[in-house]
């Protein structure tokens, strides 16, 4: 393996602590910041929808990072963040027992009722 060492200089600065730094941007450093899941509510939306995830040192920074990463194009008016580790997810391998029993139970859909005309917005 060849070790490539690329140095970049900015405006003739003497390379000590240059822009971008060198070496401290390692995977471990990034991994030290916990992962957060971001939920955004759009202007028209009533609910917060999952927008993605990001790294941040604490909740406050997560909100600000989310603002910069996910609302730059006016996507939202409200942000929720939650540390990813607090989310419990269902196991895809259990999809069979969890979801398939519902497939043949069409009577669970309220499609067998005749709605009176007076009832709107159903």
């Amino acid at each position, binding site marked *: 393996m060849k070790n490539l060492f690329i140095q970049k200089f900015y405006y003739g*600065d003497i390379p000590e*602590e240059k822009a*971008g730094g060198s070496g401290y941007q390692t995977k471990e450093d990034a991994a030290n*910041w916990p992962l957060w899941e971001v939920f955004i509510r759009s202007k028209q939306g009533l609910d917060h929808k999952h927008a993605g995830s990001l790294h941040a040192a604490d909740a406050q920074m997560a909100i600000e990072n989310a603002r910069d990463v996910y609302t730059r194009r006016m996507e939202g008016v409200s942000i929720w963040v939650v540390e990813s580790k607090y989310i419990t997810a269902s196991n895809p391998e259990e999809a069979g027992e969890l979801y398939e029993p519902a497939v043949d139970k069409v009577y669970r859909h309220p499609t067998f009722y005749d709605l009176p005309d007076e009832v709107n917005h159903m």
Partner: protein
Amino acid sequence: MKEALINYTLHLADTTLILAQRNSEWCGHGPILEQDIAITNISLDLLGQSRNFYQYAATLIGGDATEDSLAYLRKEREFKNLLLAEQPNGNWGQTILRQYLYSQFQYLLFEKLQQCNNEQLAAIAAKSIKETTYHVRWSSEWVIRLGDGTEESHTRMLKAIDELWRYTGEMFVPAVYETIVDVSALKNVWLQKVNIIFTEATLPVPEKAFMQTGGKEGKHTEQLGYILTELQYMQRAYPGAQW
């Protein structure tokens, strides 16, 4: 009178342009992806502000002047930006501190500017102050985080204060053309705000430091030449080049 207004508008435009250019050097080099985006956003906010000021200056000057000619075709000695804006990025802490010291000042300045009787400048300030509010919030939190962080980050912040503090005095020394807002009156409240943040960040506020001035009159540190060389390269090498 009109010349003073032009110079003042250029001063506001130049400071925001040069700081935007400095911050943009981080694009693709930020310590972490999310912060890379954050500092680039701030850079773009400042660039947007500078465009508004340049456009206004161009209408005041008239003739062939455009926002582009003012940004790309003026020489070092014609630039009236604050010395603080042109200082190198250094490490992340130094960039953060530069942003905080300036944003805290810009907030107080725009607060006054939005009430001034020049409609155009007042409108630009009123539009920009929301951005500035966020810049202050973002950068002050980082100053606290780094100052009150590890021994390493604390030491780097001390060094950054040592590098940058001498350029803060200039903000409050009015230039001849600077008559719309009395910046000298902003000094105490700026110091109070900085004191609160520095105290929380366990950082000392320097006392009786030497203050370098001159930026507002076009007397710059050696840094500005390098910035303009890169910023203006395309227009100098290919005059009138368009996208």
